[in-house]
């Protein structure tokens, strides 16, 4: 009896979800964004940057809450300046900070979010329950949101962002303050959404390990500009001929043996980073362990962590 929903214009798999052309935004004399040109591909994208790099300004522009000073933006083919409500109807936004209405229960607040996004009342209630189940909030959803713990509030915010079945999700620090279990569950939900349900996800987070494990693409902002951009593999790259080594017990003898074999050794937290002469692979490490009797537990090629990339990019950005 109800007319079927006007289905969103079919986005073909490769068209950019978000496209920015020379976007800039000034607050007084402060230049928050400085000519950002960017195409975010479908899939899950990590949007990174130090504090004050312009991430939240960019999100606000994309949500149509803030007009850019210069440039053009398009989100899912909609111009957020001309049709901010149209953008927000098709986008789910999970804010970083608490955003709840006091006095409403978990399920009420999610269905309220649905109603405000244009869902009929009954449909909103049904979806609120389904979505809360999906993000893992059980019977607690009949209690008031202000009584919830941080983790539960985070789930409610995620459910609010999902209730109107948006095509694109902006998730701002979705795992902040969660314990390892809770974080793993939320990341699992995000991965599931982006891989199995075709949602496009833009994830902002300071916890780079989470981004490493969730996102296919990375965009790194620094001082209002794009500092790095690409797939996770492209951005991280690898350091050839370096190995990360871990073991038990006093490692002085082992290190000496390695150095004698022509390797470099550096400490990295509990681990050692060993530079081996070209082409030797792990053999010198195993040999040194056998000779020195050190209890070797793990050897693996040293990968550049996203954190290293981040720190380097920000440092060079500041120097420039």
């Amino acid at each position, binding site marked *: 009896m*109800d*007319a*079927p*929903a*006007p289905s969103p214009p079919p986005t073909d798999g490769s068209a950019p979800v978000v496209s920015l052309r020379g976007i800039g935004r000034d*607050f007084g004399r402060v230049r928050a964004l400085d000519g950002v040109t960017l195409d975010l591909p479908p899939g899950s994208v990590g949007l990174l940057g130090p504090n004050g790099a312009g991430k*939240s300004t960019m999100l*606000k522009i994309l*949500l149509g*809450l*803030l007009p850019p000073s210069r440039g053009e933006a398009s989100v899912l083919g909609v111009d957020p300046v001309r049709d901010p*409500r*149209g953008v*927000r*109807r098709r986008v789910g*936004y999970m*804010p970083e*900070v*608490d*955003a*709840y*209405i*006091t*006095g*409403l229960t978990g399920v009420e607040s999610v269905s*309220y*979010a649905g*109603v*405000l*996004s*244009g*869902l*009929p009342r009954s*449909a909103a209630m049904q*979806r609120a329950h*389904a*979505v809360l*189940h*999906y993000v893992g909030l059980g019977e607690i959803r009949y209690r008031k949101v*202000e009584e919830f713990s941080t983790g539960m509030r985070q789930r409610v915010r995620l459910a*609010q*962002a*999902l209730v*109107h*079945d948006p095509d694109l999700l902006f998730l701002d620090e979705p795992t902040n303050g969660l314990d390892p279990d809770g974080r793993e569950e939320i990341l699992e939900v995000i991965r*599931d*959404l982006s891989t*199995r*349900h075709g949602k496009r996800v833009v994830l902002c987070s300071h916890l780079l390990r989470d981004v490493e494990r969730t996102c296919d693409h990375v965009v790194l902002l620094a001082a209002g500009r794009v500092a790095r951009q690409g797939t996770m593999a492209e951005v991280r790259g690898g350091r050839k001929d370096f190995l990360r080594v871990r073991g038990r017990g006093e490692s002085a003898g082992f290190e000496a043996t390695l150095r004698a074999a022509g390797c470099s050794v550096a400490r990295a937290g509990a681990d050692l980073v060993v530079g081996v002469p070209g082409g030797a692979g792990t053999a010198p490490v195993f040999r040194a362990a056998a000779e020195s009797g050190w209890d070797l537990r793990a050897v693996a090629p040293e990968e550049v962590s996203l954190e290293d990339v981040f720190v380097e990019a920000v440092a060079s950005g500041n120097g420039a």
Partner: protein
Amino acid sequence: MPILEQGYEPYRGPVGGGRGNFLAIAGAALRRNRRWYAWVLLLLSLLFGSAKEYFLVLACYVPRALGFTDDNPFFTAFANHPNLYPDMMATQTFWALVMAITVGAGEIAEDLRTGALVFYLGRPLTRLDYVLGKVVSVSVAVLLVTLLPTLLLFTVQAVFEGRWEWLAEHAAIPFAALGYSLLVSLFASGFVLGVGAVARRRRWATVASAAVLLGLWFTALVVAPPTGWTGSGMEERRIKQALAEARTEEETKAALKRLSDSLDPIGSASERAEWRALAPDSTLAACGRDLFGTPVPSNFPWKRHWVLALGVPLALLGVLWRRVRAVEIVS
């Protein structure tokens, strides 16, 4: 039958244009004010605001209904006094403002504190939806205190009177009551939402608007007390004496009119009457007298009370309008 997947389901139902969004916002705001003290206050305000008039009307008509034929001139005069309804609503006005403070002053502050504004702004809404929703939510509370008891009393009186001519003569009353209630709603919501928006805590917003209201009210009270109220009570004593000494019906009527005027909360008879405009309830009541067709004589060449009653809430709503936008920018 396929196994039902326990995961995420896409939504394929209809999506509306969001035209009634402000009603949804008003509904949520009202729902969160379902607190016990709001109801206690509602009860109190109905009692304080309308008890006197209900008593007068019932005291006039109930004896008639019970078969007493000789009407009590005192109550009959009051029940048909042209100032019965405007006075009643004038008393209600103060309580309507108190009610609005209890219900609405913390609305914006609470939304700022809990980040609800961010919640709203992430949705397909406009700022107008938000502000309108809040205004409607306060207005409903105000109408409960003002319009509801007034219309009820009018119905009671019309039923007891039983004459169509009476109804025709007094047909303007419900409309005036409606107009006045809407004016009070606008003033009350503009006042509490605008003043309350300066704070970031419900408690401080409530205190700030209560302090402003009480401060103005006390000021007006000290400078220009309404006759027969806090003053020495001399006027009251004099009228009672005149009533006791009245011999003819004319004299009694004049004394009664003097009494009802002296109880007039607008304080039009007080020495520094122009200061009464400081008390919002008096200013509104003056507008009410205009609406009910019994205007208070004013020394001013222009309708100052109308400018205040309409200008203040609109200016304060302007403050709110800016405040809602500012939050978009400040992270």
